[in-house]
């Protein structure tokens, strides 16, 4: 039993829903109580989908238990088939149905429906959403994929991993398809997003697979490799360097000569070299997210934008090894946890200049008054912008530059604030318009004189100065904090 305040991932059947909802011609019959229908709103409200997820819930009640839940499941599956006429049916159980052990797969097959039935068993009490998505996708691929039936021609690949409710999957996909096109590689099937079961059957016709989101696609890609000998890409094209490496990897897998990509649209490398970006030097960044996005963010933040990595973590325990390796490279301690409170404590302790995290970290950062950009699921309605806003490819790197640098002070603004601190517009309480003000704690800790001095420190470091000084004073039993102590602490922390 563990105590959870907020969770980074939903239960595994929500992962299955992300796959089913991404696809066409597939219907998911889920053995679950009525409350579990909340999951529909993730798709209709957060992602703003204009159709209901293709999910039928059996919504069994207490009075059905012990008696007729199996019968109810069969009725629901039959009715769902008749109403929606899908090309295939996916069946499974949510956490409660898992306990009553009705065997949805066996029951659905016993109905003798004229379409294939794929059963997924998702252990709700040990696994989570991304695992559920990966397992579901794998089971579907296994059920439908056929070996190659046409001779090898010009290079073609599959794109694996994008789902419904994915963080910028829609936009990444557009970028990556365009990139592949420029490289001269045709796209055979994209799955699960937009694929029909019949499309999964054609997976074997590709020469190789592009794994966009390893959390979702790795299991299926490994099976396709074993089964059909299809290799996969291992580079996720987030950032300019990774996009180049991805292009080289694709060219190699496709048997094409390494080609120079047209990088005209890649503005972020130049922006990062523009003189005003000098102030980005060494800004301390705390990164937390799913493994794919956290690893990419750590790389881009340091190598491409010149930040310093101050913390790295992920809730994707399945990728613990990769996270640990990257953390070691950057000389920080890896944080592998799904406990929101632990992440909050780590950020508070770290006092970074910028947090790159999920919506959860956005809330933490807001409270601590630290700038933040969102880089990963769990998603929020804001993570489905109306505009094209990819993370991958050159355009994706441009988006990263904008969204990560914008929350920080622009260089000139920083200067002006430092120089004209007493000016009525740049007064000590001024803050960048987009940042919430962290409430200054009420204190009797400080002498009036020291408190006054504190207001002369620009707001964007004031919170940090306050906390550092208070910690310094507490450790040494200094009370109240005098002007002297303030500058002692400053000198101490400058070392």
């Amino acid at each position, binding site marked *: *039993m563990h105590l959870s305040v*907020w969770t980074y991932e939903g239960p595994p059947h929500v992962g299955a829903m992300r796959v089913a909802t991404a696809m066409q011609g597939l219907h998911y019959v889920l053995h679950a109580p009525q409350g579990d229908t909340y999951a529909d709103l993730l798709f209709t*409200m957060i992602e703003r*989908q204009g159709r209901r997820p293709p999910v039928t819930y059996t919504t069994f*009640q207490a009075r059905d238990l012990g008696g007729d839940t199996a019968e109810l499941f069969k009725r*629901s599956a039959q009715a769902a088939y008749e109403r929606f006429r899908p090309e295939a049916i996916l069946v499974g159980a949510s956490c409660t149905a898992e306990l009553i052990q009705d065997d949805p797969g066996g029951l659905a097959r016993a109905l003798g429906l004229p379409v294939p039935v794929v059963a997924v068993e998702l252990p709700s009490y040990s696994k*989570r959403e991304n695992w559920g998505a990966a397992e579901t996708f794998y089971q579907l691929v296994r059920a439908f994929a056929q070996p190659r039936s046409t001779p090898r021609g010009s290079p073609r690949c599959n794109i694996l991993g994008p789902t419904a409710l994915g963080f910028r999957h829609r936009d990444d996909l557009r970028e990556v398809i365009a990139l592949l096109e420029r490289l001269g590689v045709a796209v055979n099937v994209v799955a699960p997003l937009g694929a029909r079961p019949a499309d999964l059957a054609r997976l074997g016709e590709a020469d190789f697979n592009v794994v966009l989101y390893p959390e979702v696609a790795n299991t299926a890609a490994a099976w396709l490799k074993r089964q059909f000998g299809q290799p996969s890409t291992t580079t996720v094209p987030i950032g300019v360097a990774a996009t180049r490496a991805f292009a080289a990897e694709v060219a190699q897998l496709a048997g094409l000569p390494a080609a120079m990509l047209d990088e005209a649209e890649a503005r972020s490398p130049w922006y990062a070299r523009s003189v005003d970006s000098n102030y980005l030097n060494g800004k301390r960044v705390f990164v937390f997210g799913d493994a794919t996005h956290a690893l990419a963010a750590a790389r881009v933040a340091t190598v491409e934008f010149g930040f310093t990595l101050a913390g790295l973590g992920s809730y994707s325990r399945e990728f613990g090894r990769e996270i640990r390796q990257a953390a070691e490279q950057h000389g920080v301690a890896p944080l592998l946890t799904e406990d929101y409170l632990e992440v909050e404590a780590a950020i508070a302790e770290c006092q970074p200049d910028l947090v790159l995290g999920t919506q959860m970290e956005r809330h933490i950062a807001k409270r601590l008054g630290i700038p933040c950009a969102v880089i990963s699921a769990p998603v929020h309605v804001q993570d489905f912008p109306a505009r094209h806003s990819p993370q991958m490819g050159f355009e994706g790197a441009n988006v990263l530059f904008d969204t990560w640098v914008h929350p920080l002070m622009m260089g000139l603004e920083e200067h002006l604030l430092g120089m004209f601190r007493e000016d009525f517009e740049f007064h000590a309480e001024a803050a960048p318009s987009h940042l919430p003000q962290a409430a200054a704690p009420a204190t009797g800790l400080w002498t009036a004189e020291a408190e006054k001095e504190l207001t002369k420190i620009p707001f964007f470091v004031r919170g940090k100065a306050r906390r550092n000084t208070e910690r310094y004073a507490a450790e040494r039993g200094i009370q109240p904090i005098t002007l002297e102590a303030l500058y002692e602490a400053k000198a101490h922390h400058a070392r």
Partner: protein
Amino acid sequence: MSSAGILPRAAAPLAALPQVLAERGQREVFCGLTGIIWLHRKMQDAFFLVVGSRTCAHLLQSAAGVMIFAEPRFATAILEERDLAGMADANEELDKVVGRLLARRPEIRLLFLVGSCPSEVIKLDLGRAAQRLNQRHAPAVRVLNWSGSGIETTFTQGEDACLAALVPAMPKLAAGAAPTLLVVGALAEAVEDQLRRLFAALGIGAVQFLPPRRAAELPAVGPRSVFLLAQPFLAATAQALEQRGARRLPAPFPLGAEGTTAWLRAAADAFFVDQRRFAEVTAAAEQRARHALDGFRERLAGKRVFLFPDSQLEVPLARFLSRELGMQLVEVGTPYLHRQHLAEELALLPPGTRLVEGQDVDAQLDRCRAARPDITVCGLGLANPLEAEGLTTKWSIELCFTPIQGYEQAADLAELFTRPLVRRSRLES
């Protein structure tokens, strides 16, 4: 004066019931855990610990929508494989989790252990757990339990279960005490304050609210208590109060000007407030509310409304929409119809209203599409897909989060229904 000092009041005759279609099929409603979202804001020193699965935790955070609070006053003790396989004793684990939680949150005075589908299916006895933990943590913390499981409760029934769990903990009203009025059901604080002023003006002094804002302020109850339900979904709570000797005052619910007056009148009659005084206190406020509704009535009269089952507020809402705003009721769905508590409401519905209890969501969607109502009241899962099909919708969950009861809120309630129509006409013009 009757022995209790309060006048018994005849309930509306049940024979007046309109035809009710019972439907069974897929339901598209939240479970009772959802009530925690507003209850934890209401009772400020209470903490809600759901004993459930990752799904339960995910429901709470998805229904809460935004995660505004650093550490909200609710959390989930997520059952894991070890607890189910008997490798760990679930009770011992729970005690540990509670111990850590209380150490971390010393301001908690009342802890609810909230049951879920998984805890019920594995027969984890949270009643016994609450007793055990009560002994350990008394007197600093009181531990109570209720279930918000989806196999037992639908959406607002969670609040019912929670309030019912509070009833045995209420102190006993002294035998010689003056008769008191209990207002039952979570209301916004502004609404509570308005109602308090109205009752005071009527001369009904001893008015208390359940749930109270703080756990320590649980009102007393006994045979000299009468109660008014402020919400239509409180079947178990009413029963528990009746077991403590309190008597329910049958009344419509305080939605709209008419509903509010009828609701207040039930209390006034029980406390022998004379007609003149009642009129003096309520007439101006009722008039103001009716006046405020005029503009909305102009917009909404004749519009056809379809209500999907969700919160059990549907019947009182339908009464308000049809009688005070002149809307036409295409279908009124409700997850559960409490025939006795809603008798006064049902009597006010236009004859021939199509009432549907329970749900078969696909069949209901078919009916809704066929009827093409001007406005559809439904849950969050259905709203955008229906909008995409060209229907105008109002999400019903907002009705649970917004102050809508009483005179001053009548127009706000009407505005909730006009807003989507105004939006559509703005965008189309």
